[in-house]
Every structure is written in structure tokens, then in C-alpha cells.
């Protein structure tokens, strides 16, 4: 008789581990199956990890988890080819418990999280690919792995297999993602002494900063770039919609090289020795792309369910919440001893009532808007740069004249009407 578990979790990313941890805490027998050499081996993130959602699972995790730096400052750049309009926010409060968010290396964090799961009783199997779900009478009853004697059975299967989610596609929960529903992100870790990082980013020892960059960083493609500080590394990356990469035939590493050589960026990363290079997909389909989340004996969580808020680079936290909510629904189903779709549906309901779905709904048109209206990135950001340039360059012209010139130039490129239309569209997409 092969082993049977209460739950099988496919994928040891933060979504899968969150679900496994919660279920094991409630006494369910749980196995996590991960194709990588170890949890986190394949997982990529900038990465900012949010305190609140992690703490819901593991109180005061920051005292023991392998974190890089608490983020005390978040900066935003609207970048043109030679300049940037910058803003941001820094506070002492984020430098103290309970903090707001941290930079992390996922390979380290996920391993630690997996160890917490093991301590809670979860069995973790690495280096094992799940090839398909085993179906019986229209319900998922287990998974088939690529190993000899590789079938495994459970009452419920949690699909936490990340952005591609081959398994939920096989179940017909969604089609293959369209190229505009995923972004391709590439990033590098550059090694630098911690004092150098602190000096360049104006940080107290041990503290961190993030920079989100819009505009020129992506060579005009719809996407964003980021620079995050770790203890002894700077993470620098750029992501753009796959549809755009294909259409405009840009190679991802060219984008990264462009970003690294940009005059605004270069001084920050000078002499950083590249030690790792990653490329990974990010779900960008948003609210409209969310697949079916619940079936008989099966739920979908995290990136596999397209739960990423690209506008706010939130993914890991949504993954963790979805994992936890799925676990809570499974625990309830376990108590009544039935794991049909209707028994698991509280997961979907609770997700819909949480900020996760509310946020995704709010931005449901945002990335599409940028894709069909490249002027937001390609015209308005340079125009903003130009406007500030003129206002702040002291050359003897009166401020009033300058304002007039700025407005005149804006209108020479675009009618007041189309400007107004763009503002309205943007407001609608964000409201």
C-alpha cells in the first residue's frame, strides 16, 4: 500500500511552504514535492519580503530568519536617458521592530522556511518533478512524479508550482499564458562591501533601501526596473512584458546592460562584481487572468494563480496569504472529512474578501493600459524630466515664462484633449 497523506503540496516556494506549514501545525500529514535541489534553489525574487504576511505564519520571524536588510527607504525614479525625477520615503520607524519589509535571498529564506516546516512535521521531497495530477472520478486524488514507483496519494493536492503552472493548465484551470500575461525579469547580484553600499545609499549600518525605476530603464518597453540593497550585494533587475520582448526583439540581458550603464545607475553599482544572474517569469495577467482556484481535491495558490501585483512588486506576500487561506480551508474540510470543490471553496471566498483580490481588481487594467498606450512611459516621463529640468536650470528666464514654455511644448506634441484623455484613462485604471 503506497503512502497516503492528508495533503500533497507541489512546489516549495513561499506559497507552498506557507500552506504546508499551516496545515502541519494543525496536525495534518503533509508532503511537499519540489523539483529543485532544495527549496529555493530555483526561486527568484528581487526581493522584498513583507513582514506582515510572514509574521501571520511565524511570529517574530525576523529574529531567526536569514534576512538581508530591513528596508528603511523606498525610492521611485521616473527616468529619462540622462536624468531622473526622483521621490521616495524614508522613516526611522521601518528600522525598528516590527519593521515593514526586508530584502532577502530566496534561496536562503526558502531553505529556512522549509526547515521550519520540517520542524512542524512536514515531509519535504526535493529533486522530484511532479508530472501530473492523478484523477479518479473527476477528482484529483494524488500526483504522479518522475521517479520509479512515483505515484503518491492524498485527500487534497495544493498546486503551488509557480508562474508556469503546468499542472493547473493540465487540469484545464487556465490556458497557456499569453505573452502579455507574463513578464520576463532578469536580474543580477553584484557583490560590494557593506560599508560601500551603506555610503552610496546613505544608510545606517545594516539598513536597506529600494529603488523602483520607471521609464527609460526598459528602453521604452512596458516594464519596470529595480535596485535593492542586500548585506553585501546589490540586486539589480528589469522586467518587461513577454509580448513586448518578443514584438520588439530585445534581448533581456541587453536591457540589464543598458540599465547598468545608465548614468543615473552606474555610480551606485560601480565596481560591483556580478556573482549571480537570474531570469524568471512574473505573472502580470492580474485580476482578469486569475484561473479557476478550486476543484475537487485540489486548490491553486501563489504565482500559479497569477497572484502578483506588478504595480507594487508584491508577489511573495500574496503567495503566502493564498497559501495560508488555502490551508485554512483544507483544515476545515479535513474536519468534515470531505474535500470536494464546495468544501474547499472558502479558500476562494476568503481570498476574494481579502486585500489580495481587492488590490488586483483595482489595477486590473493597469499593465494593459501601459501596453497599448506606451506614451505614459515614452512621452510623459521624458516630458516630466524636461519640465523639471527647465524649472530648475537657472538661466535668467523668469519662472512664469518657463511655465509657459513647458505647457506650450507639451501641447505642441499632443492636443489638450488627448492629454486629458490619457489622464482620465490612467485615473480609471488606478481608481
Amino acid at each position, binding site marked *: 500500500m503506497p503512502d497516503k497523506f492528508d495533503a500533497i503540496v507541489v512546489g516549495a516556494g513561499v506559497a507552498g511552504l506557507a500552506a504546508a506549514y499551516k496545515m502541519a501545525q494543525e496536525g495534518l500529514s503533509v508532503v511537499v514535492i519540489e523539483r529543485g535541489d532544495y527549496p529555493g534553489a530555483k526561486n527568484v525574487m528581487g526581493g522584498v519580503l513583507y513582514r506582515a504576511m510572514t509574521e501571520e505564519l511565524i511570529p517574530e520571524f525576523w529574529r531567526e530568519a536569514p534576512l538581508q536588510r530591513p528596508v528603511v527607504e523606498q525610492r521611485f525614479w521616473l527616468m529619462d536617458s540622462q536624468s531622473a525625477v526622483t521621490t521616495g520615503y524614508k522613516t526611522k520607524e521601518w528600522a525598528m521592530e516590527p519593521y515593514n519589509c526586508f530584502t532577502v535571498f530566496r534561496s536562503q529564506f526558502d531553505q529556512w522556511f522549509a526547515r521550519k516546516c520540517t520542524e512542524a512535521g512536514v*515531509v519535504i521531497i526535493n529533486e522530484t518533478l511532479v508530472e501530473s495530477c492523478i484523477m479518479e472520478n473527476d477528482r484529483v486524488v494524488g500526483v504522479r512524479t518522475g521517479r520509479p514507483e*512515483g505515484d503518491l496519494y492524498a485527500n487534497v493536492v495544493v498546486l503551488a508550482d509557480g508562474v508556469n503552472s503546468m499542472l493547473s493548465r493540465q487540469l484545464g484551470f487556465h490556458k497557456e499564458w499569453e505573452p502579455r500575461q507574463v513578464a520576463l525579469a532578469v536580474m543580477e547580484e553584484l557583490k560590494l562591501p557593506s560599508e560601500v553600499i551603506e555610503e552610496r545609499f546613505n544608510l545606517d549600518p545594516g539598513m536597506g533601501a529600494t529603488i523602483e525605476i520607471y521609464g527609460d530603464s526598459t528602453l521604452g518597453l512596458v516594464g519596470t526596473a529595480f535596485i535593492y540593497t542586500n548585506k553585501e550585494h546589490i540586486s539589480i533587475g528589469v522586467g518587461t512584458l513577454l509580448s513586448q520582448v518578443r514584438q520588439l526583439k530585445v534581448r533581456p540581458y541587453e536591457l540589464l546592460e543598458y540599465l547598468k550603464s545608465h548614468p543615473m545607475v552606474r555610480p551606485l553599482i560601480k565596481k560591483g562584481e556580478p556573482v549571480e544572474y537570474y531570469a524568471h517569469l512574473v505573472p502580470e495577467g492580474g485580476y482578469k487572468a486569475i484561473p479557476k482556484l478550486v476543484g475537487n481535491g485540489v486548490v491553486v495558490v501563489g504565482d500559479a494563480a497569477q497572484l502578483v501585483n506588478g504595480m507594487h512588486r508584491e508577489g511573495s506576500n500574496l503567495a503566502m496569504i493564498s497559501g495560508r487561506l488555502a490551508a485554512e480551508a483544507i483544515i476545515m474540510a479535513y474536519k468534515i472529512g470531505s474535500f470536494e470543490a464546495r468544501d474547499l471553496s472558502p479558500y476562494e471566498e476568503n481570498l476574494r474578501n481579502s486585500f489580495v483580490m481587492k488590490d488586483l481588481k483595482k489595477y486590473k487594467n493597469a499593465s494593459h493600459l501601459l501596453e497599448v498606450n506606451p506614451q505614459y512611459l515614452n512621452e510623459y516621463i521624458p516630458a516630466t524630466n524636461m519640465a523639471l529640468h527647465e524649472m530648475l536650470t537657472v538661466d535668467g528666464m523668469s519662472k512664469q515664462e518657463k511655465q509657459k514654455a513647458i505647457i506650450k511644448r507639451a501641447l505642441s506634441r499632443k492636443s489638450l484633449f488627448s492629454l486629458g484623455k490619457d489622464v482620465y484613462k490612467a485615473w480609471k485604471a488606478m481608481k
Partner: protein
Amino acid sequence: MHIIVCVKQVPDTTEVRIDPETNTLDRSSAPAIINPYDSHAVEEAVRLKEQFGGKVSVISMGPFSAVEAIKKCIALGADDGYLLSDKKFAGSDTLATSYILALGIMKVCQRKPYDLIFCGKQAIDGDTAQVGPGIARRLGIPQLTYVKNISSVNPEQKEVKVHRKLDEGYEVVTAKMPCLITVEKEINQLRYSSLPDMLRAARYQPSIYGALDLNADPLMMGLKGSPTSVLKIFVPTQRGQGEILSGDGQIVVNQLINGLSSRLAQNI
């Protein structure tokens, strides 16, 4: 048959960096793996067990984290694992390590004596190839090193016949069991572990023995029991690329002779 396999957890040397300024190993970024030769030793032991019946016990000396290496061995089909771990073992060189492992083997084999002991031919983090032979010497049994093939095992006659790899060709040797065998990678191909073995490994907890459990002599282990010490680790300086002469044979030979003699002249 009771087969013992000694394994070591090592940093993945393909990922170890040596800081060229301080000449120290930066192991922080290198993941810990089971010494690759040792996996083949486990595989060979498991194959013999499948053929002749019996049991495979794995022994490792190392820090607590080496539990992971032992679990890997369970996934490969080993039955039991033992970790010899104690602060007093820290700093042991090959002499002290073979002492501790020999004690471990005796402890594990109190009830069920061993027929064969397997080791990898060497550990990739030190390349000394001394621990296996050291254990054999301490236990007073024959040692067969650099084995690339076991051509026959006869449990009744207590005899084993192997091919030992030499610089050129190989040597066929017969030895009495019990004996110790260190293996080359080519001795077998690792098999893909079955899911039940993976599950057993994930749940497995090896027994852990310290210096007291082994009745180890404090003067024979750790730094005190280690006459060798590492003075310096360095990256070998790169050798310049050789010069390649090509073209007509006669001309090339003349070029070579001229080149060599002018260089000789320079050196003198």
C-alpha cells in the same frame, strides 16, 4: 552480508571561491553535497545487498548538518545511517578521522560484524585519499584502492575480486573479506531513487554518536590527534599558453630546436 559505507559531506567545490588576497576558502556560498565518490560507494553497496541480501549501514563524521548527506544515502537505498559528531572531533586530520571512523565502525558492528567497507577514492575538498586506507590499517583488514569494477563476490569463500585502476590500464586483485574498498566513479551509474526511498530518507533520523559513545581517546582526535596542519591554501599561478608550431615537418623541427636553444641560452 553487512556492508559499511563511509561518507563525507563536502562543499560543492565547483562553487567554492578562493579569495586571492587572503588565500582563504570562501565556503559560504557553496552548497553542501555528499562527496561524489561516496555516492558511488553507497550505490555499489546497495547493488551488492540487492544481489546477496543483508544490510547497508552508512557512517559519517562531521557536523550536525551532515545529517543531510546521510539522508541522501538512505534515498540511494542504504538501510541505516550513523553520524559521528562531537566538538572534540573538530580539526581532525586524516589520521584522527580514520581513528574516529574506525571506532564508529566497531561500535555499529558490535552485533552484526561487517563483511565489506566502502569508501570513495578521495574527498573532493582535500583530495588526500588517506582516510580509507587509514581505516583499513586500524582495523587490520586488506585494502583495495581505486576500484573501478567488482568482478565477483563470493560470500561463502569470503572472497572478492576487483579491478583496480592504474595510470595505464588496470590490475585484477583478489582479496579476503572482510576488506575495505575505495571506489572510482566509473564503478557504477547512480540510479534515480524511487519515491518510497525518497520518503524514507526525508523522514529518516540517523543515530548520532559523540566521543564518549565511542570511548575515544582524547589524544587521538581533533587537533591534538592531528599531526598535519594546513599552513596555506592558494590558487596556483596560471601557466602561460604554450606555443604551437605548425607547418612543414622539417621547418617545424628546426624552429623547435632554435627556440629551445635560445631559451636555454637565456636561462643560463
